């Protein structure tokens, strides 16, 4: 079976790859591009551990084919920090103990970033429903919600950096 040639933009960098026609974007990222920050928890779009941002929208990369990324823009957890400088969400997750095992963390951070891009001041309920597609089994979500709230406040300029 001949492979598909794809040209796309990942975290701002132009990238080319070959993939099988039935290969998911998640598998391409992890197995072909060695970007293993996106995780597979279910492969069926139920857990959100593979969340990436595709053309500005958060999606489960396990439900997107590698071939579908052609000509589009992909943002992953690997592109979230600016060099050594963490994104406020990353910093508040770290300082607020909002992660335990850390397997859901990349997907939740990416999903939360997409939320704050369209709603700078979400309520607790809005955060809970936005993140309802991202399962975390360790934390009970309490510290995750609080970290998103405090990062959002900092990004709005209401508090100093944590």
């Amino acid at each position: 079976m001949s492979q598909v040639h794809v040209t796309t933009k990942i975290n701002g960098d132009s990238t080319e790859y070959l993939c099988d026609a039935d290969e998911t974007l998640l598998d391409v990222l992890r197995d072909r591009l060695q970007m293993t920050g996106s995780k597979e928890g279910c492969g069926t779009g139920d857990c959100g551990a593979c969340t990436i941002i595709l053309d500005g929208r958060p999606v489960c990369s396990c439900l997107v084919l590698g071939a579908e990324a052609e000509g589009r823009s992909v943002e992953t957890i690997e592109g979230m920090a600016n060099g050594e400088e963490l994104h406020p969400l990353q910093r508040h997750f770290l300082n607020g103990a909002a992660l335990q095992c850390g397997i859901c963390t990349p997907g939740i951070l990416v999903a939360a970033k997409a939320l704050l891009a369209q709603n700078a001041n979400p309520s607790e309920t809005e955060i809970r429903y936005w993140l309802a597609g991202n399962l975390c089994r360790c934390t009970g979500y309490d510290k995750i919600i609080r970290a998103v709230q405090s990062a959002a406040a900092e990004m709005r300029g209401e508090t100093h950096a944590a």
Partner: protein
Amino acid sequence: MPLDRDPADRTYKVVGHRHNRPDGIDKVTGRAKFGADLAAPGLLHGRILRSPHAHARIKSIDTSKALALEGVKAIVTAADFPDHPQVLEDGELTNIRYNVMAREKALYDGHAVAAVAASNPRIAAKALKLIEVDYEVLPHVVDVELAMKDDAPILHDHIRTEGMEDAPDCPTNVAERIELGYGDVEAGFAEADVVIERQFRTGAAHQGYIEPHACLANISGDGSGDLWCCTQGQFMVRDVCAQLNGMDVSKLRVTPSEIGGGFGGKTTVFIEPVAVALSRKAGKPVKIVMNRGEVFRATGPTASSAIWVKMGCKRDGTITAAQAELKYQGGAFPGSPVSMGAMTAFACYQPKTLKAIGWDVVTNRPKQAAYRAPGAPMAAFAVESIVEELAHTIGMDPVDFRLKNAATSGSKSAYGPTYSDIGLVETLEAVKAHPNYAIKLGPNQGRGVASGFWFNFGGQTAVTLNLNIDGTVALSVGTPDIGGSRASMCAMAAEELGIPYHHVQTIIADTGSLGFNDVTDGSRVTFASGLATIEAARNAAKVLCERAAKIWGIPADAVTWENGCAVPAGPNAGEFPPMTIKELAKKAGETGGPIAGHFEVSADGAGPSFATHLVDAEVDRETGRITILRYLIVQDAGKAVSPAYVEGQMQGGAVQGIGWALNEEYIYNDKGVMENPGFLDYRVPVASDLPMIDTQIVEVPNPGHPYGVRGVGETSIVPPLGAVANAVAAAVGARPEELPMSPPRLLKLMKEQAQPLAAE
């Protein structure tokens, strides 16, 4: 290793303060390497063929067509795990071998029957379809009480009921009967003013870790090799995989990856021995990653149960008798946690008489694995339901009723031993004083309380601490970090050595680099690896003092360690300025070589942890939906080394318990096939299901640890099932006897019993 001194006098510089975890940056940037994140040159991908039947004789397996497929490099079946003597000598090892690859019969839907290694995962999946297995489908049983009947389908011809003198000598699914207790319960019930009994049932819940099992095996031509995997115990994986594959234990080195959740479910092996066998056969590295369906169908959920509880009390609240019969099915092999259920059931209280009987039963379900306080939550659900009902019946506040009967420091536990210092009373008093206890409830709302207990464990532990040339410290522990334990180890080593937290770096060592450690279980890590870390640091400090003594030319016992420096012990020792750890590290080569401390122990004195939970719930009478309005956890941590991570353990355990109480269960069809093997239909709590989870840490120092630490990871899942059930009972005026309280069950309960209970 006893408590150092009166903890009230002790001030900590590092321990008990909030620090960022050493693995944190990697986990928020995607750099952390989990089980499935490793690759290797020439890597093959393994997939496992699983039985579609709940119970079937395997008449033959034909792999020839699959082997002929281009890209397929190796196939293994049970024939590749022959009868090595060390396996046959060990009953549990024999069961694990059967569980990782079915022989003669497939015992549950999802039981492994063959495995393929191919050049990519898609070819491996195609190859599975080409393997021809001839099954003879047999009658099956998945229900614990049906499996106990005389005419039930039998899983194993060799099982006879242990623990029964008059057990008939014929095959049975009842693997063991246990009994414990004291006093005459009939006399206790006769003395009671109120006696209540009920029959309860709980579903099988899965640990639900988000990371599926994953491993990468690389076995060389000389029979030695490496295994990378996500596990709660690399030494356990090494020992089991080596023995099942007939290797010397020394030939296999296991490196634990970051672990994406375990909760007990990664304290055994499933795919790891198979990857080793495939790699050896193919002569190439082989990676196996389970999908979510495999995780549900073929790893180890907890037991489902049927529990009968009867308790009696006097009008003043004194519990005069407590009796329980617990039936747990642990899947296709003996080993359900029923004995722990029986031991923990009444451990919060001091009933005057007690009798508990437990039955360990096998069924055509996956072999159960540990799940956070294994066996305890379902027993506590049953007991706490009756306790709440007794309190209401005699018109006593439910917290006061528990206080009246609470286990206390120095009291004899319901399961035998005498408690050391424990904090149950403190948790109850804190709940009573908390503002949540006084909030007025609205219509269709109810409030529930429940307490819980877990033993905690110590176990075999080895730790090594090495001093680096710049005075920083490299600490190696052998217990995988599932909740932030590396941060706590850094804190304890820094506290002992008098150096900053960030001067210690803790790693989880591979099996070739450190002595044996038991798996991360029993809430043991902060206690046992912590204790060993403290002792290793003290040993290193002793060496540091000897080196300073050598430099100063005074006796070693004339030097002590204070605030990160060697100092003369007293005025007679001589006048020398303090010598810092950095100076001593730099001079190590001239004063005797590398400076290290290590410690090996079978740790005792873990010290049990108690908790009390308070929950307000609201019921939608039309849909049967239950909403958790507010939730409070109060738990004794002994000494919270990392308070934020202690809170995290409490919150996470409580929410797992809420899921078990409300939604989570294995659902089987009439063929014994699991119908909900995915996160869409096996519904774990999501963010929008929950409120904030309030926490309050109580610190009653554990006399068995120098800082008073006791484990906190497991106790938090024990009370929620009962607490939520009690809240729902109060809201609807009918008592839930079956978990989960899914909407259909709650609607049925309200329809049948929708009236205020006599006394509630």
